[in-house]
Every structure is written in structure tokens, then in C-alpha cells.
């Protein structure tokens, strides 16, 4: 398996790279969405999977990126690749602002602060109408950039996954996981836990910021309800938990499997599907805390950095 896997990975990436030359519009849109979910789930994994600090409001970074890019494109005429980077930057700044007070403390403070962040940003965006268009939304000039955005989103997904691979294989990653297993012990060993948590949180915010910005450009129109849905946070959590939190490929696996399942099966029962997500979270936490990949790791003695 170890010799085949890298080759298979290259083949898959090449296939995805040439896909836009022959793919259908629907196919392209679907793969783009899978890229987005990989970037989102992979980013959530960086903070919550590695340090054990649960972020219940990661969609806030997605929305912050979307609005930053939307405003820059619509009012200041920025090109979308620059605006996307700005979106990632804005999300990072937001993460520092929230992480500074909340991550200094141990315990559930961070999780609940993130639970409220989403609502707060939505209220702010609705309030500052002149800048954001308020509830009427924000329209960007029309531009057909689906194919370049496909590549940009794909690149984002690859970078997030690569970052996870590098972090998990590094001493920095080991320190994060030490914090997850026993924060007191980590401190006793001399790890500056606050700095480590804050850096992990910053890294986990940039990907969703960029993904939000790219999605905003792709759709050309954003409004508070469309870029701050709680459902997006739920979906990235479910994908990561299902695939295996704290692993490199878990979020990728979860994103692909659950996206396909969603499109194939659950799209026909739109009301059951969020209920099912709640049930999956409960079931995975109780019965399979390390996810599918965690099970495989134990069963087949796969390396930890998978």
C-alpha cells in the first residue's frame, strides 16, 4: 500500500487538474464543492482535531472571508485572487481577536464563545448596511471565472491538507496533541500552551476565509443568511469526525464520502438530513471517537501521520 498510495494520489490530482477541459457544468460545480468541504473540514481539524478545543462557529471565518472579498471586489474593484487572499487575512485577524481572550483559558470558554460569534457577525453585517448592503445582500459585477476558481479552490484544499500533513508530522503538531491529551502535563513540560493554541487557531481560520472569498466570487452575490449558516459549521464538524479527527486524510475522506452521500441519497429527503447529521455526531462520539481512519489505523497498523 505504501508504494501504491503516492502514485494513486498523483493520478487523482492529475485527473482533477484536467477535469475542467471535459467536465460538465454540474460535475465541475460538484467537484468545486468537494474542494471547499475539504478545505473547511481540514481547517476545523487543525484547531479542534489537534488541540481538542472545539470550534462551534468556524463558519464565521468563511463568512468573514466572503464579506471581505465581496466588499473589496464590489466597492474597490479588486481582482478576485487578491480579494481571496485578503479574505484569508481578515479571517486570520478575526481569529487572533477572538483567540486572544478565549484561548488563554482552559475549559469550555472557547467553544461557547465560538458558538456566539456567528450570530454576532451576522448581526453586525446586517447592521452596517452602507458597507455590506445589509439584508439586501451584496452583488459583485458579473464575471465567469468558474474554471479559475475551481483551480484556486483545489489549491486551497491541497494546501490545507499539506499543512495538516506537515503539522502532524512535526514537533509543533506533537505539542498540539499533547495539549489535547493533557494540557496541565503539556504546561509542566514547558510548552507555552496559549501561544500554540493561538497559532493553531490562526492557521485554522485562513483556509475558511479564502474558501469563503472564492465562494462569494463564484456566486457573485452574498447575503448574511447565505454566508453564515450554522449548517456549514455542522457539516465540517460531521465530515471531520466521521473521517477521523486529528488525522491528515480523515477530513478529506469525510468530505468526499459525506458529500457524495448527500448528493446521491439525502438530497431527496432534505428535512431528514440535518437530523441525521446530529445523530451521526452522537454516534461517532460514542462509538467511533477516532473516526473511520482512526479505526483503520488501529486495525492495519497504519502510520500515525496518515
Amino acid at each position, binding site marked *: 500500500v505504501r508504494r501504491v498510495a503516492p502514485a494513486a494520489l498523483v493520478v487523482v490530482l492529475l485527473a482533477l487538474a484536467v477535469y475542467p477541459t471535459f467536465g460538465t457544468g454540474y460535475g465541475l460545480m460538484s467537484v468545486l464543492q468537494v474542494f471547499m468541504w475539504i478545505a473547511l473540514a481540514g481547517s476545523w481539524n487543525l484547531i*479542534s482535531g489537534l488541540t*481538542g*478545543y*472545539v470550534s*462551534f462557529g468556524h463558519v464565521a471565518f468563511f463568512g468573514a472571508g466572503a464579506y471581505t472579498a465581496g466588499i473589496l471586489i464590489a466597492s474597490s474593484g479588486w481582482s478576485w485572487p487578491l480579494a481571496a487572499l485578503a479574505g484569508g487575512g481578515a479571517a486570520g485577524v478575526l481569529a487572533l481577536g*477572538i483567540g*486572544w*481572550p*478565549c484561548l*488563554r*483559558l*482552559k*475549559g*469550555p*470558554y472557547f*467553544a*461557547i*464563545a465560538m*458558538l*456566539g*460569534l456567528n*450570530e*454576532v457577525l451576522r*448581526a*453586525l453585517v*446586517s*447592521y452596517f448596511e452602507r458597507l455590506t448592503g445589509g439584508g439586501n445582500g451584496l452583488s459583485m459585477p458579473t464575471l465567469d471565472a468558474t474554471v479559475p476558481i475551481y483551480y484556486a479552490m483545489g489549491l486551497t484544499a491541497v494546501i490545507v491538507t499539506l499543512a495538516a500533513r506537515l503539522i502532524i508530522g512535526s514537533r509543533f503538531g506533537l505539542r498540539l496533541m499533547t495539549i*489535547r491529551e493533557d494540557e496541565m502535563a503539556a504546561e509542566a513540560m514547558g510548552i507555552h500552551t496559549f501561544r500554540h493554541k493561538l497559532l493553531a487557531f490562526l492557521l485554522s481560520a485562513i483556509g475558511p476565509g479564502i474558501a469563503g472569498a472564492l465562494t462569494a466570487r463564484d456566486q457573485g452575490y452574498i447575503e448574511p443568511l447565505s454566508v453564515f449558516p*450554522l449548517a456549514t459549521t*455542522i457539516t465540517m*464538524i460531521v465530515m471531520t*469526525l466521521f473521517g477521523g479527527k486529528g488525522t491528515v486524510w480523515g477530513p478529506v475522506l469525510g468530505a468526499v464520502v459525506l458529500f457524495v452521500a448527500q448528493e446521491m441519497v439525502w438530497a431527496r429527503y432534505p*428535512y*431528514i438530513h*440535518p*437530523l441525521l*447529521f*446530529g*445523530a*451521526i*455526531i*452522537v454516534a461517532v*462520539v*460514542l462509538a467511533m*471517537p477516532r473516526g473511520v481512519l482512526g479505526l483503520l489505523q488501529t486495525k492495519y497498523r497504519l502510520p500515525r501521520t496518515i
Partner: protein
Amino acid sequence: MNVVITPAMIGQVIISGILSGVLYAMVALGLALIFGVMRIINVAHGPLLMLGAYTTFFLYSTFGLNPYLTVPISMAVLFVVGLALERTLVFRVIDAPELSSLLLTFGISIALVNAAQLAFTSDLRAVEYLTGSWGIGPFAFSKSRVVAFVFAAGLTAGAFLFLTYTRLGKAVRATSQSREVAMVCGIDVGAFHRLTFGLASALAAAGGALIAVIVAIQPEMGQIWTFKSFLVIVLGGAGNYPGALLGGMLLGLVEQLASLFLTTQLSEVVAYVLLVLVLLVRPTGLLGGRQT
């Protein structure tokens, strides 16, 4: 916005703040109990409140019961729901890492909200029972809020009396101080976890039942209540039950002041800023409390 703010308006704000503050305190007390006894933040606390609100709504609309008579019924129903949730799911994560209990109760919360959407639809429902307000001097007292205040004050006082003077209440506090020592003293800790979860859900249900008479309800109403209850606990100091009363009042006042000086739209933003400030300056709460 050049509105002249008169002393009467400030007085009105203080009255409204106290009226809603006690309601906040009661709901938050439930969350604080679970946190104290079980070391779990129950993310599903708000959705349990929502179920309490719907119980009252249906008893009122189907059987024509006086909504205030349904408060004990809602509490009893949710006591059983809470007990069942603890017995089947929550007890499994009591000693697990925080991540597990947060995610588990988050999953339960999503399932409850979406099940409610399936069962009750997302339509806004209102219990139109007690409308209008009483005028005393320059102040207006919204009738439904005053009654809610009386109920919440009574139930909160009852909860405190229970915790302070009864053997059961003392056992709950003992479990919250040290589970091991409580166990050594012969307290069946597992049973007290169930009891606590049931009581906390009943307090949430009372909140929901009273809120249903004040504003229109819908399945997603609960989430913000988890957040607000947590904020109240943080303000008062985690592990400090009387602190919840202070925290509730403070949140009520701050929200009302925000809607007077800014706009109602931003009252949640102000509450959030308050949370971040307290975490920065005094994370153990205004009254101090056990560092966890």
C-alpha cells in the same frame, strides 16, 4: 439618532432589565448545575428550553389550558426528557475529555432542533394569552413579563432553598464540590447526575414556557439561550450558584441599555463584547469562583 434620554427612560430600562434578568438567571442556573455537578457544558440546554416552550404552546392551543398552569407540566415533561437523555447518552461522556461532551451535547442539540422542525415546522407560534401592560406612574410593566418575573423569581428561590436546606440539595452540592468525597459519603453519584440533568432541563422548560407567552417561538430559538446562559454563568463565576442571579440581572440590564443607546439589533453584539471583556479581565467571574 438624536433622542433625548430622560430619567424616566433610564428607570424603564432598569425595570425591564431586572424583569428579564431573573428569567436569564433561572435558565442559567440549570446550565450552572449541570456544569457544577457533572463538569459538562450542555450545549443542548437551549434546545431543551425550546421543547418546554412547545409543550406549553400545544397544551394551550390544543387543550385550551391556561399557559401559566402548563408551567409545571412542561417542567415535569422536560424533567423526564432530561433524565432519559442522561440515562441513555450523556452519562457515557462524564469522565471523557471535554471535546467528547461538548460534541455529544452539540449533536443532541442539532437533532432536537431539526426533529422539532420536522414535527412542528419552522412557523412562528405565539401563545396570545396575556398582552398589554400595566402603567404605574411613568413606567409601563408588560404584563406577561411581570408574571414571568414572578414565576422565575419563585422557582429560582425554590431551587436555592432546595440546594441549601434539603438533604438532596446538599448532596447535589457535595457532588459538585468533590465527586470522590461525595461517593465516599455514600452518595449514589450516578443517580445524582440524572437528577441534576432532569432538574436543569425542568428549569430550562420553565424558561421556555414563560418565554412562549412573551414572544413568538420557533424551533431555532434555543441556540441563543445556550449562549446567554453560559454568559450569565461566566459573569457570575462558574461554580458559584448565587453568582448566576447577579449575572442574569447584569445581562438583562446591559441588553436593555444597549437597546436604549444603540439599537435592539446590536444587543446580542453588546452581550458578546461583554463576554469577551469578562474573559479578558476577570475570567473567574465578577463574584470570583472556583477556577476550573
